[in-house]
């Protein structure tokens, strides 16, 4: 099957920052992404879990974005401007995608 090179960027970020991140992505011309819920996690600022939470402050989300390799840098810069002062992690993986016209 015909596939095309792409990058898969995964950003774990605090839930209150979600809208800011996605707005920054859209501004940088990245209009395709998917947001996954996160149940809990652990990092330098300790361990946490979603169970019983009512505050949106406590949670995180994972934003997954498939993007053409040549647009990666612009996207990372937009994302980094948002996550810079905040906790969370950004990872990039090589990927292939079907239907390149969608990216």
């Amino acid at each position, binding site marked *: 099957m015909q596939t095309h090179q792409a990058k898969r960027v995964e950003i774990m970020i605090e839930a209150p*920052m979600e*809208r800011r991140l996605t707005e920054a992505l859209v501004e940088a011309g990245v209009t395709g992404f998917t947001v996954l819920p996160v149940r809990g996690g652990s990092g330098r*600022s300790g361990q946490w879990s979603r*169970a*019983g*939470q*009512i*505050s949106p402050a406590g949670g995180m989300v994972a934003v997954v974005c498939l993007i053409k390799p040549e647009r990666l840098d612009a996207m990372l810069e937009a994302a980094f401007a948002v996550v810079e002062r*905040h906790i969370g992690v950004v990872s990039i993986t090589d990927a292939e995608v079907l239907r390149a016209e969608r990216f």
Partner: protein
Amino acid sequence: MLGLLAALARSDLSIPEAVAKGMSIYLLFAIGFKGGAGVAAHGVDATLVASLVAGVVLSFALPIIAFAYVRAVTRLSVVDAAAVAGHYGSISIVTFVAATSVLADRGISSEGYMVAVAAAMEAPAILSALWLISRRGDGAKMDSDLWREILFNGSIVLLVGSFAIGVITGEDGLADIAPFIVSPFQGVLCLFLLDMGLIAGRGLKNSLGTLGAGSVLFGATMPLIGAALGLGTGLLLGLSAGGVALLMALAASASYIAVPAAMRVALPEANPSVYLTLSLWITFPFNLTIGIPIYIAVATAVVGG
């Protein structure tokens, strides 16, 4: 009760996030609606506007006192201290709901518009906290988006919205949906407090370690300072005993929902475990167990039942 909570905390019992959020929406809706229906029934009191203004002023002023106090008794950084101060200027709506329910239990009536006062006291403290930092040249980012998020945050909108609906539909509307609003209220509040207890209890062990004795002292005495200010303000406004008790509870309580979310956006450098531990794990249980009875006793003694 606390021993029970401790046992609970060691268990895997937990209420799903969606259900907890559903319960909090129910509680806000019910309390807002009842407050609005109360205002509709008793007419708009002349002190309504004065109370709203006083609430806003209190919310602006409290963080400045809290900031000076917390800096005096702890070694928290300016950023952390300002974040903490913001929490104590704002309010905990669950503490307010619990106080309302204790008042209702004892047959003490209060002004229905205290719900609107509660809503008015949520946001100004955040501004004070950010001003405390910007004064020191440290740039806290405060964009218009954040303003909108704070002013239109879910709980404020729900409170104000259901208050407005209550005012419009009045006692008739209340009678209509009473089986939904009034009857299950105690039970839902009970389950919700259980959930809060579970969450608080679960984190307590780890969290207390990170706090010094000074912080604990602050968390347990700042509510009394806030309550004293609330008492004075309430007397100036000429509120009923119930209204004074509620204003004391509002001033004494610390936010652990709206303000933490705002702080994560505007002040990411502030350590959440400091402000959350203080507001959720010290001040909240303090108010629930010791504070509210004191505030009610003082208010009825001073105003006269």
